[in-house]
């Protein structure tokens, strides 16, 4: 359990560093990939809603804490928590390891994540969001996450198997082996 937490901690740290350092260089028309969201998507699709939600909460909280004083702490935690849980619940509907399915769910997760973030920001009046920015952000984040999800699912799935303890391990044990 501790080894799994430590491994996920390292994954999160790498994702935070990539987000802070590498993501700006990959920016297209001002929109960059969200590596933290990709790890949430990857773990939720690999390990189910429970681990996805817990990891999503911690990852979102870390992102909140490192986002600077103007950012309201808790927003990303709530968004990633809900995305991790929701995506984990959709995991059984993925047939096998179809990349298209992972990309589709990743895209959906990206759109929902940015949409939730935008709506919460508008409700709390903490961002100068416009509907156009919100629409652009939803599309861009959906595209980036759809592209990155098939790549994120592989290593997160391997990690979930290596450090078993999530629902995938339980399901795998019940079925006589890991599903992925």
């Amino acid at each position, binding site marked *: 359990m501790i080894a799994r937490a430590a491994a996920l901690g390292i994954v999160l740290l790498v994702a*935070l560093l990539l987000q802070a350092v590498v993501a700006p260089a990959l920016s297209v028309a001002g929109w960059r990939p969200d590596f933290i969201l990709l790890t949430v998507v990857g773990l939720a699709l690999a390990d189910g809603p429970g681990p996805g939600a817990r990891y999503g*909460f911690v990852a979102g909280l870390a992102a*909140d804490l490192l986002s600077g004083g103007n950012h309201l702490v808790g927003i990303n935690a709530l968004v990633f928590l809900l995305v991790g849980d929701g995506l984990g619940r959709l995991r059984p509907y993925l047939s096998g390891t179809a990349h298209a399915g992972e990309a589709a769910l990743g895209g959906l997760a990206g759109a929902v994540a940015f949409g939730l973030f935008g709506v919460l920001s508008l409700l709390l009046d903490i961002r100068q969001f416009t509907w156009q920015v919100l629409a652009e952000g939803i599309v861009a984040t959906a595209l980036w996450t759809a592209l990155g999800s098939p790549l994120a699912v592989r290593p997160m799935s391997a990690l979930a198997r290596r450090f078993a303890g999530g629902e995938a391990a339980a399901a795998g044990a019940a079925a006589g082996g890991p599903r992925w």
Partner: protein
Amino acid sequence: MPEPRRRSRTLLAVLVLVSLILITVDYRQGDGGAVAAIQRGALAVFGPVAEGFATVVRPVGGFFSAVGELGSLRERNAALESDLQELRRQQVHMADVERENAELRAQFDMRQRLGFTTTVGRVIAQPPTSVERSVLLDVGANNGLLPGMAVINEFGLVGKLTEVTAGNARVELLTSPNARYGVRLAETGEQGFLTGRGANPFQLELLDTEAEIEAGAQVVTQLFTGTAIPDGIPVGVIEAPRDASRFLAVRPYVDFTRLTTVQVVLDYPTQPTELPEEERLPSPDLPRPDLDDEP
């Protein structure tokens, strides 16, 4: 409902609640609250780690960024190259304008000092061969120029006009071996004739072959019959004291290899070679000495 699923939903609800509490607390406390302090602490810890990571991966990120921006970088590069060329051209032009401005100011000072009316001529052609000692100006008869007029610059005498067309004029430089000018030493008034010797110093032949001349003595023009060269224009300095030779070497003030603008003296009359007969005044009838009174 199975126990694990209920536990999972409970955990989800708790985490949602924690998130909402965090949002509320941070929203209410603002920058001075505990959550904001934790945020600042997290940034203080993460900052150096991110900086170290950036040192390692920045070249990689830069590569991807450059690949992504390749098209726009090429356009920007081309635009910057164009700007650079334009700035270089302007810089060269500015330096030329500044030099010309300084030259013309100095020439204006010289003109004021000598009290002439002049016109500015731009040297448009240097001699086509290294042995020819003349330059072509961009001004001519349309600007009031006539053959024989003196040409000066800020340092002194440059030469005289030998050929004039409507729009251009040729200046025979002082360095030309064909040129011969009446000059004098400014300090002593010793007079003589100056001859050009190409790239070598001028040759000065004084009328007084035994006068003692010191090195550094200044040579200026002397009015001479049949020429329009004004009096007192600086020419050069004596290079060495007189020795056994009857000639003296004179180093010119003017740098004839860097002529760009000159002044043509318009209002100095050509000195007569002979007095016109009709203008001569009759000699007064002076009383002759009475030789008859002599014993």
